[in-house]
């Protein structure tokens, strides 16, 4: 609650032209903006450009923000739109970058242990490779839901669509990713170490 009040004060001050408040706001929100843009565009440089554009736009239009609304939803909306625009600007090759063939090798090998399977760098490689098969809005919906942890209603507001459209995007995205994981990364879905009989805790 205190955080929300602090955030509101910060937004109000930044909207009034207080640059220091704005810089604090950037500091607070930059991680999620960059992470969201990165997961949607699949490219760190693009994500940085998107984040820069998002915050500069924010600086210009912050006075218009309705303080009764949820700031993060607004921020996600601007970020997702900018990230999708960034993908489209790349033209016909506007898909996530495919990683080199060896990048996901450890994920493909069922003989390796699960502790290695979920090395985040490798997991990231698998996501980028498989998410390239998703439409931009499906990708955005999946990122907001599974990585950013937003509720369906909030994703709908961020994407400017209905909740049922979000559910549909998520359904399609999960199916494509699941199929891709089963086919290309059996180590994730079926690989078990023979010496590991542990039960979920």
């Amino acid at each position: 609650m205190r955080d929300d009040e602090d955030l509101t004060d910060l937004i109000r001050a930044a909207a009034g032209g207080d640059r220091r408040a704005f810089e604090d706001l950037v500091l607070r929100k930059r991680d999620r903006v960059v992470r969201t843009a990165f997961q949607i565009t699949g490219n760190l440089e693009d994500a940085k450009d998107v984040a820069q554009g998002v915050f500069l736009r924010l600086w210009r239009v912050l006075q218009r923000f309705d303080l009764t609304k949820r700031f993060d939803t607004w921020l996600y909306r601007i970020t997702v739109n900018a990230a999708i625009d960034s993908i489209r600007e790349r033209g016909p090759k506007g898909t996530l970058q495919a990683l080199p063939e060896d990048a996901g090798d450890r994920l493909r090998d069922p003989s390796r242990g699960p502790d290695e399977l979920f090395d985040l760098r490798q997991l990231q490689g698998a996501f980028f490779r498989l998410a390239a098969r998703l439409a931009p809005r499906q990708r955005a919906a999946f990122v907001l839901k599974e990585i950013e942890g937003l509720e369906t209603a909030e994703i709908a507001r961020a994407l400017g669509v209905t909740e049922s459209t979000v559910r549909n995007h998520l359904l399609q995205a999960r199916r494509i990713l699941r199929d891709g994981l089963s086919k290309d990364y059996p180590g994730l879905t079926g690989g078990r170490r023979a010496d590991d009989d542990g039960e979920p805790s």
Partner: protein
Amino acid sequence: MLEHLRACPPCQRAVAGQDPSMLFGLLALAPLSPALLDDLSRTIARRAGSDRPPYGALAEPATWPRRAAAAAMFALTLLSGYATLYERSAAPTPLALSSRRADVEVDSGRGVSQVIDLTVGETQIVMVYNGDLKL
């Protein structure tokens, strides 16, 4: 929760057995380069300094179509004002309407006590008052 999932192989397998795509939720834990984030902050702070005029809702910088539209409106206003003034000063003096007036003859001996004969613009108005008329 995610930290636990990342470190717990049995839970990982349980999630993978249910819906492996949910494992991508672990990417929320992927760290971002502090150098990249700091560089981003610096760039934004620098550009924000020159990117926004210090006033309220009108702070959006005018785009060139807006400026062009405003200039066109201003020019149009000036031109129409000038044209109006020019027309007034150059307009020919109206001809004497008396030369085109209709001849109205009123027999004052038959109850007519008042005659008003005037011209408004190009319209000639003749009002006759006859007290003997019973309407």
